[in-house]
């Protein structure tokens, strides 16, 4: 898209600014929620980079999130690392896991790709259970308070936790924006839209998708690591298929292939479950019906529809 640069940056920087301002405004309950949502949105941004922009419909992103989570959690738990190197460890484990899975799974396409990623994630979940003596299995690990201090900021306290989540979100969002607006972002979209054509323009589909998977793994890994350190807990439930489905649902709901989509989707879904659980305990059904509704009635998601109708320049 030509032009619109100022509008685009103003919009995204504006959101980041508003989220910072909310730190001083929000009541404590929503304050904690929003910190959580921002970190989960980083995970979903990673999913969006793979699925929304490049068309890689993975059903196994829980593996990458859990890799980051256990990378950080275990390095504090087993080696007594502090939060900063643990965050780095989580990020690294996420990327390495993405490299391994990507190198194999990207040899398949479409439905096979979905099943292969699903199977790898399932194997990862089972491994967490199998090595229960190290990972804590179903019960998980509680991270020691001493390991939750990131460069002097105590992540178990409200204020530093929100600010770290905000910083991570801001960096993730602006990095995502820069990526998709760079020439490489166009190549990603090209792969999604017409792989055959891209190949004849000299782009290697496998290499492009592998790079995208690594970036996606980086986002998922760092989000998993931050989530573990911020909330002090690592558990097998984060490796279940549900954590592969959730980022997909957030991205689909908010708008796949829109930079702001993952945040909007995560925010809405979080509060949808939050509000509905005061009427019913049927949270599974809320997820199920939301997924069905999006697939049936809003395949482009909220911001996808907005882009189609009103804001064609939305990246």
């Amino acid at each position, binding site marked *: *898209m*030509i032009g619109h640069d100022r509008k685009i940056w103003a919009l995204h920087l504006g959101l980041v600014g508003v989220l910072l301002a909310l730190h001083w405004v929000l009541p404590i309950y929503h304050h904690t929620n929003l910190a959580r949502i921002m970190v989960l949105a980083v995970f979903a941004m990673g999913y969006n980079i793979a699925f929304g922009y490049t068309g890689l419909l993975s059903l196994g992103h829980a593996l990458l999130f859990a890799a980051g989570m256990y990378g950080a959690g275990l390095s504090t738990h087993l080696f007594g690392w502090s939060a900063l190197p643990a965050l780095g460890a989580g990020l690294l484990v996420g990327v390495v896991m993405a490299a391994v899975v990507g190198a194999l799974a990207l040899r398949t396409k479409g439905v096979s790709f979905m099943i292969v990623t699903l199977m790898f994630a399932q194997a990862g979940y089972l491994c967490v259970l199998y090595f229960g003596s190290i990972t804590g299995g179903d019960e998980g690990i509680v991270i020691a308070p001493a390991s939750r201090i990131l460069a002097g900021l105590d992540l178990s306290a409200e204020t530093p936790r929100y600010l770290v989540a905000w910083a991570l979100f801001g960096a993730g969002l602006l990095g995502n924006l820069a990526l998709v607006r760079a*020439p490489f972002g166009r*190549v990603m979209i*090209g792969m999604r839209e*017409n792989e055959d054509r891209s*190949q*004849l*323009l*000299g782009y290697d589909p496998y290499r492009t998708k592998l790079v995208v998977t690594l970036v996606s793994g980086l986002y998922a890994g760092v989000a998993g690591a931050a989530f573990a350190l911020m909330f002090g807990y690592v558990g097998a439930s984060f490796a279940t298929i549900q954590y592969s489905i959730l980022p997909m649902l957030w991205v689909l709901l908010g708008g796949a292939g829109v930079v702001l989509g993952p945040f909007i989707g995560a925010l809405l879904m979080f509060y949808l479950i939050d509000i509905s659980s005061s009427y019913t305990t049927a949270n599974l059904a809320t997820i199920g019906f939301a997924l069905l509704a999006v697939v049936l009635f809003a395949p482009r998601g909220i911001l996808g529809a907005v882009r189609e109708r009103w804001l064609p320049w939305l990246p």
Partner: protein
Amino acid sequence: MAAVTLLQARGLTRHYGGLQAIDNVDFDLAAGEIHALIGPNGAGKTTFVGLLCGRVAAQSGTTHFAGNDITRLSPQARARRGIAYTFQITSIYARLTVFDNVALAVQQTRPVDLRRSTLAALDRVGLADRASQVSGTLAYGHQRLLEIAMGLALQPRLLILDEPTQGLANSEIDVFKTLIQSLVPDKTVLLIEHNMAVVMELANRITVLNFGKVLTQGSPADIRANAAVQAAYLGADHAAH
């Protein structure tokens, strides 16, 4: 004219099941020529250029491009070495803008100013004023031009065009002819074409393909005079060769 050979194919073969789509074909392209590939429907023209650009894998035979063996290279590697291909059935990024379509090709050449280079490439085919239109909404003739613009924007050494004038209006064909003539001798063009007027006017040499084999090769005048070609086209006597 002691032409330099840009592309050399030897013994290229491809069959589908029992059907010999391309049967042991030798083929040379001289640098800087406009070469037309003609033949009746089903002669194997699209399969043959598919073998040259790597979309179709050869079962035997070799292909050399600019002196290097490219037989085993992927389509993307061949594209990076300077072979551009435009599809017979328009294959653009229909949901992206005209600008983004061409930018994807232009950015392969690592220009200093992507935006300016892309607009220049669009200008060449007269689409610059439609840069921000979604390409799927273009008229058919403009989509064909966009397809050609993407091929050209790669700055290839060899441009392979698969039935580029199909569905174009006469005025658009004139634009196209001027465009192609302006490319040589800097680039080499291989053209699959059904419109004989275009072929006779543009081509330096013509190769006739029939039943997956080279029927004959020569200048436009030679081909016009060749009885076997006429037989193949009229279908009167398939046993002519």
